[in-house]
């Protein structure tokens, strides 16, 4: 007991020391990076003393990691940061109301991928170009050109002005928590939709583990299957926003996907949110999941029970090709902010090379957007999980995303259609409606919602 207590004390002491060292190093890095020509004055005065920044992002792994680094910024600048990370739907609803009412409660906000068209289109964020072009506000070695062009492109308006700095380029891929069960059944990571169906049949309930578990946000997790069957959400976004959810291709895709859920998912599969999916996979209570890379890499985390059995692959291909989702989120400054310059300082700090590198090295942050860091040995090392190279999957998927099939997602009325897709897949998987009836209903309801939005089809 005494030894245990001592060991605990030591661990705490070590942790505190590491934390202090980290804070000191980070503060020095941030101070040097942040304030070109505005280094902290002699005598301890800090440039943002007395400034309070209110910052929010949805509870992504990155946003939660950043919580531990924010004190570095506060230490370096003297600013007080109120930082919050509610869940994805709560964040979007709260911020949508905040932005639409011209509120000034926040200084830095995440620009959510599916709200890009709406939030930027409505002028609720300020363009960042004036900050980027001002050497007093953005040091030369910050290198805005280092960010993946595909990620930054999503945050530009038609005239090319940039409204957010991307902190993630999340890709849709596939992971198996218990790949050993695949091997025992003579299966490999499936590369096609048929291969998935075949493998799920083979591994389902092996060791009592259900085979298939995507997150229940089907407006994200189902779309690669929809497009893989040759379907789409809109006819030709952004020019023609007519929903096309009741085409034979869309119905076949929904039927196929819902059958996987029904036949190989855990009990209550349609109630699993993204955080539940990650926890279930890490605990080894479900096996294969097509999902975002930021979630799947956590299978290799220290607290994961499947770190030694997991495997990964690209999103499987359908009869019409491979269409893995590519999503990006970025830091922006809301138009109502009263501390825009300080907000920009926070963004430049949070997206600086030293801080991102620190997050990669220390915490294994895996969804970065700076090309120089993606090519770095540190990143490649961290993204080799259980001996499997995720960097290649990452880069190959981002390259695929550049083909333009993700255009549907930044349409400002996509959230309306997204909800209809959720409902349709739930209706099919829970046996309430056939695929044809559910997708026809989704089509009609989407048309009604778009009409309500004033879109003429």
């Amino acid at each position, binding site marked *: 007991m005494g030894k245990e207590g001592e060991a605990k004390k030591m661990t705490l002491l070590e942790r505190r020391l590491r934390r202090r060292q980290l804070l000191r190093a980070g503060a020095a890095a941030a101070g040097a990076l942040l304030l070109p020509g505005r280094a902290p004055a002699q005598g301890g005065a800090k440039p943002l003393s007395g400034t309070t920044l209110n910052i929010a992002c949805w509870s992504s792994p990155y946003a939660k990691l950043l919580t531990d680094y924010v004190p570095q910024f506060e230490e370096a600048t003297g600013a007080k940061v109120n930082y919050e990370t509610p869940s994805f739907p709560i964040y979007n*609803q709260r911020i*949508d*109301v905040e932005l*639409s*009412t011209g509120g000034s409660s926040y200084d830095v906000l995440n620009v959510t991928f599916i709200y890009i068209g*709406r939030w930027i*289109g*409505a002028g609720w964020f300020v363009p960042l170009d004036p900050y980027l072009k001002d050497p007093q506000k953005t040091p030369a070695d910050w290198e805005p050109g280092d960010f993946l062009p595909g990620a930054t492109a999503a945050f530009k308006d038609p005239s090319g002005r940039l409204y957010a700095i991307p902190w993630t380029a999340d890709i849709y891929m596939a992971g198996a928590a218990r790949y050993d069960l695949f091997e025992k059944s003579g299966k490999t990571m499936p590369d096609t939709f048929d291969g998935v169906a075949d493998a799920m049949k083979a591994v389902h309930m092996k060791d009592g583990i259900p085979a298939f578990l995507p997150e229940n946000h089907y407006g994200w997790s189902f779309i690669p299957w929809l497009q893989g069957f040759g379907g789409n959400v809109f006819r030709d976004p952004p020019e023609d926003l007519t929903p096309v959810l009741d085409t034979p291709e869309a119905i076949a895709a929904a039927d196929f996907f819902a059958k996987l859920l029904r036949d190989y998912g*855990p*009990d*209550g*599969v*349609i*109630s699993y949110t993204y955080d*539940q999916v990650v926890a*279930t996979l890490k605990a080894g*209570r479900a096996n294969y999941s097509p999902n975002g890379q930021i979630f799947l890499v956590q299978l290799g985390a220290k607290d994961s029970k499947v770190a030694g059995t997991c495997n990964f692959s690209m999103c499987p291909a359908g009869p019409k090709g491979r269409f893995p989702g590519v999503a990006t989120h970025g830091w922006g400054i809301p138009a109502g902010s009263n501390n825009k310059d300080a907000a920009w300082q926070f963004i430049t700090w949070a997206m600086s090379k030293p801080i991102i590198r620190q997050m990669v090295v220390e915490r294994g942050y895996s969804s970065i957007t700076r090309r120089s860091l993606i090519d770095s040995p540190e990143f490649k090392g961290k993204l080799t999980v259980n001996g499997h190279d995720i960097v290649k999957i990452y880069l190959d998927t981002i390259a695929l995303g550049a083909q333009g099939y993700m255009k549907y997602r930044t349409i*400002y009325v996509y*959230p*309306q259609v997204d*909800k209809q897709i*959720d*409902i*349709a897949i*739930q*209706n099919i*998987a*829970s*046996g*309430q*409606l056939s695929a044809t009836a*559910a997708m026809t*209903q989704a089509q009609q*309801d989407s048309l*009604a*919602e778009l009409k*309500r*939005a*004033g879109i003429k089809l």
Partner: protein
Amino acid sequence: MLAVQPSSIKRAAENRRPARTALPNWRREQRRAFTFGLLPALLVLVAITLGPTIYLIVTSLTPLDPVHPHSAADFSDPIGNYRALMADRRFLNSLEVQLKLSAATVVLQLAVGLGVALLLNAGSRFLEAVRTAFILPMVLPPIVVAVVWKVIFTPDVSPMHRALTAIGLPVHSLIANPDTALGAIAVADTWEWFPFTMLMVLASLQMIPAEPIDAARIDGAGRLALFRYILFPYIRPTLVVAGLFRLIDSIKAFPLIYVLTNGGPGTATEVTNYYAFVESFNFSYWGYGSAIATLMVAGVLLLSWFIGRLGVEAERDD
């Protein structure tokens, strides 16, 4: 048959009505003082209760969407939202779901609350402690209740599902099954709110004088007869009031639905206020959402009036 002259009726009425001039000065001053004293509070009350309601109704006459701020003053088709609602399948479905949920929760909460109150209606320290324990669900934050039931209803981690499986009665996920999802929410809601009925009924039971109960017992009344002829008539108005409160509250059910089912599977648990929330805050159709909310307010007012009448009539019968 006697013919009654209208003029004689008028005279009689005038005689009954106290003459204004009959009021002494000090009384008039007192009234004026009360009026001026209460006026500021009344004005504030009107401003914070009626103001938002009026704004809600006005907004419901517009296609307000914050992306297009000018739509706040667009009254070109004032009943457009209401017309669209009448043809909106999801809205009509949400009304049906709301009716089912309200009926189930009110009946269950009255039955369980009444039953537990009858069991606990005795003077003992043990029962007092039990009463306190029963009140706990009601005082927990609703979101905590929702999280507790999310765990209970998630087969993967649920102690309830494990226990049922252990005794050979495995049950599939209740919240992912459209046939049981609404029932699961009703059970969770009942767990949270039956203490309200229980407390009200207990208070009412403890107000009943001992004489009629003793007299009935002497006359040989059994427990059932005692309840039917003595206790129930006493507590009936309380049950009506409790039912009214629970009915109105059931229309506000939100955290349980948000956390447990998100309105699903499909739209199986999408009640009207949840649908209003989706339209208003997921899609930002504030005008449309306001129209749904306005209809809900009207419905609740109508219900309150109707059940209030029932209560008055019940008391008059007594």
